[in-house]
C-alpha cells in the first residue's frame, strides 16, 4: 500500500506539482471575479506547464549540455525543452501584456474590474 502510494505520488512528485499548480491556475481563472486575478491565474496555469516541460528535461546525474571535446563521455540534460519553454515564456509575457492593457481599457470605459459588476454595467448601458 505504502509502496504503491510511493510509486504513484512521490516518485513522480514533479508531475504532481505541475498538475496541482495547473489546477490552482484554472481555479483562479474560473472562480475569481477580479479580472486581474484571472490574469494571475492564467500566469500560474502557464507557469505550471513550463515547470512540467523543464522537469521532464532533467536527466539524473546529467551535466549542462555544453559540447565537450571528442572522446569525453558525458551525460547531458536534454536542452530542447528548455529552448521550447523560452519561446513559450515569451508568448506568456505577450499574452499578459495584451490582457493587462485590455483590463486598463475596460476600467477606463466601465470604471470596474470585477466581472459581476462589469456585467451589470454592460447590461445597464
Amino acid at each position: 500500500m505504502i509502496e504503491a502510494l510511493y510509486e504513484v505520488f512521490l516518485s513522480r512528485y514533479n508531475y504532481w506539482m505541475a498538475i496541482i499548480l495547473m489546477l490552482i491556475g484554472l481555479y483562479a481563472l474560473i472562480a475569481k471575479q477580479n479580472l486581474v486575478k484571472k490574469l494571475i491565474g492564467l500566469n500560474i496555469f502557464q507557469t505550471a506547464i513550463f515547470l512540467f516541460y523543464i522537469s521532464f528535461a532533467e536527466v539524473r546525474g546529467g551535466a549542462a549540455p555544453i559540447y565537450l571535446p571528442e572522446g569525453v563521455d558525458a551525460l547531458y540534460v536534454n536542452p530542447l525543452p528548455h529552448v521550447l519553454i523560452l519561446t513559450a515564456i515569451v508568448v506568456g509575457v505577450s499574452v499578459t501584456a495584451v490582457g493587462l492593457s485590455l483590463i486598463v481599457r475596460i476600467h477606463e470605459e466601465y470604471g470596474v474590474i470585477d466581472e459581476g459588476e462589469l456585467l451589470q454595467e454592460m447590461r445597464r448601458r
Partner: protein
Amino acid sequence: MTVIDHLPVLLIAIPILASLLILLVGWHDRRFCYPISLITVLSQFGAAIIIFLQVMREGTVAYHLGSWAPPFGIELLIDSFNGFILMVILLLSAATVIYARRSVESEIEPEKTVPFYVLFQLLVTGLVGMTITGDIFNLYVFLEISSIAAYALIASAQKPRAYVASFNYLILGSIAGGFALIGIGNLYVATGTLNMLDLARLLPASYELATVHAAFLFLVIGFSIKAAFFPLHLWLPDAYAESPSAVTVLISTVMSKVSVYALLRIVFSIFTTAYIFTSFPVNDLILFIATVAIIAGAILAIAQDNLKRLLAYSSVSQIGYIMFALGVSNQVALEGGILHILGHALMKGCLFMVAGLIIYRMGTASLKELGGLSKAMPISCAAFALAGASMIGIPPTIGFMSKYYLVLGALEADHWIYAGALLIGSLLAVGYIWRFIEIAYFKDNDHDEGHRQVRAREGPVSMLLPMVVLALLCLFLGIFVEGVMEAVTPAATLLLGGA
C-alpha cells in the same frame, strides 16, 4: 536553388518583413500602409497557387529551414491537404484586404490604421505558418502569434464591448494554447520528437500509453476551443459581433478554418485512423457532439436580432458540419468536410462582408431596422441571397455539394440518424437565412424609418467587388465541382493514410 524552391519560407518571411515595413512607412505617411498590405497578401496568394500546382504535379513539397534535416530542424511541409487549405485562406485574406480599406476608414481612428495593418499582416503570417509547418511545436508558436494579433484586432474596434469580448477570447484562447502545449509536451515525452511525420512513425509503439491518450485529449480540446466547436464556442459570438467588420471577415473565415485544419492534421496525420478507431475510439462521441453543434448553433442563430451575431452563431453550426466529417471519418465524408472548409469560407466571408457593408452604410446591424433594404442595396442583398442559398444547401451551390458528400458519407457508414440530423440542420439554416431575406425584400417600413432608407446607398466598389466575387464563386465552384474535387479527393485520401 531558385526562388521557387524557397517559396514555402518566403510565404512566412515576406509578411513578417511587410509588417515591419508597414510600421516604418506608416510612421512617415499612413497612406502607404494599405498598398503594401495588399501587394503582400496578393503575392502570397500567387505563391500559394504556384506551390499548390507544384504539389499537384510532383507530390509533397518539403522545405528544411536553415538546411537542418528533420527531425532536428524545423520542416515546412506542403502536401495536397494543406496546399489546398493554404490556397483557400490566402484567397479569403486577399478578398478581405481589398474589402478592408473603406471599412477600416470608417470604423478605425485614422491614427490607429498603421497598427491595424501591422496586426492584420501578423495574423495572416501566423495562420499561414500554422498551415504549412511540419513541426508540432512550431504549430503552437504560430497559433499564439495569430491569437495575440487577433486579440488586439478585436479590441481595435475601440468600443467598450469589444474590449470585454477580446478579454474573454484572450482568457479562453490562452487556456486553449496551454492545453495544446501540454499535449505537445506529452507527445514529446512519449516519442522524443516534434516533427509531425516522425511522430506518426514513432507513435504506434506507444498507442496504449496513458500519456498518449492525455496528449490526444489535450490537443483535441485545445484546438476545439480555438475552432469554436460547440460546447467550447462561448467566446465566438461576442468576438465576431464586436470586432471591426474587416476583422470579423478574416477571423470567421480564415482563422476558424485554420484551427479546424490543425485539428484534422493532428487527428489524422499524427495519430492516424488506426489510433482513433481502435486504441482510443472517440469517433462516435465527436459525431454526436458535432450533430448537436449543427442543430444548436442553427437554433441559437434563429433567435438573434443582430445580423452579425446571427451569422456568428451560424458559424458554430457550420463548424459542426466539418467536425461531422471527422466523426464519420470515411473517404466520402472527409471529401465533404474538406469541401465544406472551402465552401464555408466563401459563403461566410461573403455574408459577413454584406453585414459589414450594412454597418458601413446604416451604422447598425440590427435586423429590425433593415426593412426594405433590397431597394437601397440591391447588389449586396443579392450577394447575401446567393451565399445564403449556399449556406442552406440549395443545388447547385457549393454548400449543397459539400452537404451532399457529408450525407453520402454518413449513409455509407450506416449513420442513418445522423444523416437525418444533417438535413434538419439545413432546414434550420433556412430559418436564419430567411429571416434576413424576408426583412430585406418583403418588409417595408417606410412609415417611421424612411429617413434611414434614403441615406442608405449601395456600397463602394472596393467593398462590393470581393463580396460579389465570393458569392459567384459559391455558385460556380458548385456547378464545376469536379474540378474542385480533383484537389479535394487526394487530400481526403492522404488524411486516411492512403497515397
